């Protein structure tokens, strides 16, 4: 069955070289893994209690998921070894490198701004208080 899918995909997508199916499959897998990481970012942004923990989820998941998705699309775009195709892959890798440098930098700047603006992280007492108040409200 896999051979059947591969043969149809190869017949419709790229000229007559079954090696491109592997490249495209790797690209699709990278995009899917990036989506999973972005799901982690979204869930963390909603459920974490504190600004710093939210920044933890957003900074890491956002960087890695963007890099994986763009790299996957760069692989899926490749169809032959012409100059335009290589240039496209190089441009997409340029975006990946740019995001790899700039997203941690902006996260660091935001975190520093929040810390100097007296935004304090939640301690254990605050978490215990919040948990107790939530339990009390749910008991009513």
């Amino acid at each position, binding site marked *: 069955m896999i051979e059947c899918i591969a043969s149809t995909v190869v017949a419709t997508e790229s000229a007559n070289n079954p090696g491109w199916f592997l490249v495209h499959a790797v690209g699709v897998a990278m995009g899917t893994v990036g*989506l999973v990481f972005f799901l982690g970012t*979204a869930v963390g942004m*909603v459920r974490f209690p504190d600004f710093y923990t939210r920044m933890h989820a957003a900074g890491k998941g956002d960087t890695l998921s963007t890099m994986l998705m763009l790299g996957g699309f760069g692989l899926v775009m490749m169809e032959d070894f012409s100059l*335009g195709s290589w240039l*496209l892959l190089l441009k997409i890798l340029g975006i990946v490198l740019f995001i790899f440098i700039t*997203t941690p930098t*902006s996260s660091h700047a935001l975190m520093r*701004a929040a810390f100097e*603006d*007296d935004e304090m992280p939640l301690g254990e007492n605050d978490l215990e208080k919040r948990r107790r108040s939530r339990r009390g409200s749910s008991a009513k």
Partner: protein
Amino acid sequence: MKEWFAIIMGASLLVLMIPILYRIIAGPTGFDRILGVNVIGTKTAVILVIIGTLFDRVDMFVDFAIAYALLNFVGAIVVSRYFNRTVPLQEMEKPKSRPRRRART
């Protein structure tokens, strides 16, 4: 295969942006809002590449994505610097006694 991959990817990115939009609207502090805007701006660069795939003009849309990522980075840096230098108004009227909520160790 390529078109369907792009469509499914873009749709799921759009759906996953909804919780971050909730954090932007309901964020307790301003920094949460900036963080959400930063995340959505980074994902918009990805969505621009996906739109370029669907229009078969990826070489053009990749340049848009580079420009958008650059503007997003500059915006985040500028806003964080701005919040860094901002002091509330009632603390500006009485200088030298800027109260901190908790002593920094």
